[in-house]
C-alpha cells in the first residue's frame, strides 16, 4: 500500500470536508437543506482552522 504524508492543514481540511458531507446527509431532510448545511459547516470548519492557526502562530511569536 502506498504511503501518504499530509500536512496538518491538508488533514484538517479533508476531515472538515468529509465530516460536513456525512453530517449533512444524515441530519437534514431535503437536498437543498443538505447542500446548505454541508457548505455552511465546511465554511465554519475552515474558518476555525484559519482562526486557530493564526492564534497559535501569534501566540508563539
Amino acid at each position, binding site marked *: 500500500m502506498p504511503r501518504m504524508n499530509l500536512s496538518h492543514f491538508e488533514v484538517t481540511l479533508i*476531515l472538515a470536508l468529509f465530516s460536513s458531507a456525512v453530517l449533512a446527509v444524515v441530519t437534514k431532510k431535503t437536498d437543498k437543506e443538505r447542500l446548505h448545511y454541508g457548505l455552511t459547516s465546511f465554511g465554519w470548519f475552515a474558518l476555525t482552522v484559519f482562526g486557530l492557526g493564526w492564534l497559535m502562530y501569534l501566540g508563539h511569536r
Partner: protein
Amino acid sequence: MSEKLVSPLPELPPVSKWLPAVALAWLVPGGGHFLLKRHYRGAILCGCTVILFLMGMMMRGYLFQPMTGDLLTTIIYVGGYIADMATGILYILARMFGYDAPDVAGHTVDYGTKFIVIAGLFNILAVVDAFEIATGRKD
C-alpha cells in the same frame, strides 16, 4: 406553566423489516441506504467512509486492540477498537490481509489512526440513519 407537546415515536416495526438494512449498513458502508433505495445518500456515505479509511491506512494508522488498565487507557483502546470494528468489511479485510501497523509516535501515524476511527464513527451514523429510514422515522 407551559407544556411541551412531544409527538411519540411510531411503533417499532418487526425486526425482519429493519435488521437486514442495519446489518448491511454495518457490514458495507452505505449498504443499508442502497438496500433502502437511497442510492445517492448511500454513495456519499460509502465514499466518505471508504476514502477516509484508506487514507488512514496509507498514513499507517494503528488499528486498536482492546486493552484495559486505567480508565483513560480503557476508554481510548476499547473505544478505538469498537470504532475500528464499526467500519465493517473494511476492518475485516484489513485484518484478513495482514494490515498491522505499529502504534508509533508521529503526527502522520496519529492522523491515520484518527482517520480510521472517524471512518468507523461515520459508519455508525450511517447505521443509525439506515435504522431510522427502515423503521419509518425518517424519509
